[in-house]
């Protein structure tokens, strides 16, 4: 069928089952927007900034498991999208981002709104394309979706010059892709799997180390089956919250810089680490030479480059977590003796009694941790929680009772402030039946606050709970601990009127200074069908604890901070 390149883009999106596209038009992408105007296969959400459009597509992808799609114009439209691409890349989120480009004849001439998009995005995309012929366009779009959502997922950029979207060509959308240079392995080596299982049977102190790959690979049910069978305790990384389920007695908690005591001690004392879809990030391992010193390591990862990158691995298994667990579980049935690990579980339980995750609540001032717990008690399983980056993110990860994967959406790898609100819009659009709450700070929320307008226009009722300590809290905490309280540029006590701001953009605002007010506001916000800012005044100098100082060993945690 003969059609324009712009129509081809729309047809390809429809063929891929895309129902929502987030974007922002501009000169070089106008042809595609003209085609969008004429079609009704998918809706387009006009975010008010390209960065937010990509984060929204990202939040949509994380919540639904489908590929998120964003569309931007050339030059500044594209450069604004780069933070979104890098955020998705670090957390392995499947996205297809389509950018307009100046016409082929102008490329390389410093044309108006020209920037080398493939050059800039090369290190922060899984793959990217500059389309230089209409004949290639259908194949490239097909490949983009395939690459984004196979193997280790990631964002793919398709940069399309304006003359290509205007040109007419034959649209034959391929039903299959054939990329001889790209063959991800899913299966996992049988011999290595067998050896790994033997190591589990030999171990006395095994520990499951769960990463974001378990969420991406939809392997949560299998992981729960595995732990039920073996009774091996587990820790979750920031990206894996929800995998085990909050009530699971085998879940120790979160591992890493702000992990709880028993999790970090378990990692330090285990004799066998079973790593599933985790990548030994520096925020997880602390000082590498002290990390899991006494353990043999089984590392299951779909990306071979993650294996052996930071720590030496005894049992490397390249494969999809689900497929590998499917092979492991039958080998363990009838052979594993859960009693073997009883003494180990008791030690860990004692560690948890010794230093449970806790905070000192107050009646005078709202504690941020209380707010998280309160939301958890009120909504529990019925909410999707997104967050920005900083103290509020860590408190949310520590104190929210996550019950399932894809319930917790945050920028873990890149740590992008401004991610939470647009990601919440995407998540709500993807899963409209859930209440979506963005737990944010008074610093982060301003970084994409223009999305109030998007949320109001499209009636996407996202609740933004601003834990307002009038500080750039996490940096302030480091300044308190490590910079002798020199609060360089972290005091945010000059503030906007958050309530009025939300109202000015068509949303609802709440000012909250007491626990009672919070309960009332939350109850009201859940009922309302409108976006809101809930400005919660919390204790200014609250710290996120425990804390492993950067570069320190995981077992050396600051458990409390005494002000000198």
């Amino acid at each position, binding site marked *: 069928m003969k059609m324009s390149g712009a129509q081809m883009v729309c047809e390809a999106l429809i063929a891929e089952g895309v129902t929502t596209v987030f974007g922002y038009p501009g000169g070089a992408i106008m042809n595609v927007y003209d085609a969008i105007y004429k079609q009704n296969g998918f809706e387009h959400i006009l975010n008010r900034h390209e960065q937010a459009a990509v984060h929204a597509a990202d939040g949509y992808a994380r919540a639904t498991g489908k590929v998120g799609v964003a569309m931007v114009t050339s030059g500044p439209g594209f450069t604004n999208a780069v933070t979104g691409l890098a955020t998705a890349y670090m957390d392995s989120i499947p996205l297809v981002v389509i950018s307009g480009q100046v016409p082929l004849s102008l490329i390389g001439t410093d044309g108006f709104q020209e920037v080398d998009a*493939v*050059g800039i995005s*090369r*290190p922060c995309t*899984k*793959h990217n394309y*500059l389309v*230089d012929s209409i004949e290639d366009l259908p194949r490239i779009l097909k490949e983009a979706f395939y*690459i984004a959502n196979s193997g280790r997922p990631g964002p793919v950029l398709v940069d399309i010059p304006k003359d290509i979207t205007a040109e007419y060509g034959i649209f034959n959308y391929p039903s299959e892709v054939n*990329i*001889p*240079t*790209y063959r991800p392995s899913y299966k996992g080596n049988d011999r290595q799997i067998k050896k790994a299982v033997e190591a589990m049977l030999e171990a006395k102190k095994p520990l499951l180390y769960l990463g974001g790959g378990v969420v991406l690979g939809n392997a949560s049910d299998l992981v729960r089956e595995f732990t039920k069978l073996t009774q091996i305790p587990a820790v979750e990384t920031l990206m894996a919250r929800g995998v085990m389920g909050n009530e699971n007695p085998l879940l120790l908690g979160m591992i890493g810089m702000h992990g709880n005591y028993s999790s970090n001690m378990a990692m330090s004392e285990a004799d066998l680490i079973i790593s599933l879809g985790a990548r030994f990030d520096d925020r997880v391992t602390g000082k590498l030479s002290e990390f899991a010193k006494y353990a043999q390591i089984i590392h299951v990862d779909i*990306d*071979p*480059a993650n294996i*052996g*990158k930071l720590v030496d691995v005894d049992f490397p298994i390249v494969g999809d977590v689900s497929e590998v667990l499917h092979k492991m579980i039958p080998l363990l049935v009838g052979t594993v003796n859960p009693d073997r690990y009883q003494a180990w579980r008791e030690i860990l339980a004692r560690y948890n009694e010794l230093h449970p995750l806790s905070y000192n609540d107050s009646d005078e001032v709202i504690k941020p941790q209380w707010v998280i717990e309160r939301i958890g008690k009120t909504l529990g399983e019925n909410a999707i929680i997104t967050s920005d980056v900083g103290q509020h993110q860590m408190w949310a990860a520590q104190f929210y009772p996550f019950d399932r994967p894809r319930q917790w959406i945050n920028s873990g790898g890149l740590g992008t402030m401004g991610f939470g609100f647009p990601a919440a819009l995407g998540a709500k659009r993807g899963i409209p039946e859930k209440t979506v709450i963005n737990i944010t700070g008074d610093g982060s929320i301003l970084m994409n606050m223009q999305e109030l307008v998007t949320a109001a226009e499209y009636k996407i009722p996202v609740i933004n709970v601003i834990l307002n300590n009038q500080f750039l809290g996490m940096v302030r905490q480091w300044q308190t601990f490590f910079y002798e309280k020199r609060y360089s540029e972290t005091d945010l006590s000059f503030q906007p009127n958050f309530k009025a701001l939300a109202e000015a953009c068509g949303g609802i605002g709440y000012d909250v200074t007491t626990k009672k007010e919070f309960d009332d506001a939350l109850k009201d916000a859940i009922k309302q069908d409108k976006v809101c800012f809930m400005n919660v005044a919390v204790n200014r100098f609250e710290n996120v604890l425990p804390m492993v100082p950067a570069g320190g060993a995981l077992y050396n945690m600051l458990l409390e901070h005494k002000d000198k």
Partner: protein
Amino acid sequence: MQEVRRVISAIVMNESSVLARVSGLFAGRGYNIESLTVAPIPNSDLSRITIVTKGNQRIIEQIIKQLNKLISTLKVIEHEEMVEKEMVLIKFPASEHLGDIQALCHTYNGGIVNAGENMIIAMAADESKRIEHFIEASQRYNPLEIVRGGIVAIER
């Protein structure tokens, strides 16, 4: 961990920006490039990129894995048993003794490739170490310009 020198060949799709993907990977992740050559593989849509690099075993392993991870890479060969050659061109003033230079070139798998009114151009193709010796030996003939090529390697 001890630093080792490695010759690595990446067989990649012969398409625009593939060299940028490879060199960008090295720059972005802080890997060394001592030499890099790229040329199309005859009768195919592939190119061969030959890279000489240095690093400890973990880094070399990462380089190979990261190269493999590029969507445009078909395969990566870490050479152990290989024949490795490098080429050099040297320009001498015409006043130098042609016969002596020719004799020197012969010792290093080369010869005189051009002789004009003002200059003589000599070529040698040999292992990198021997190319260095050749350049050293050529100093006595007052070389005007020295151009080294990158390394190419083939499995034995």
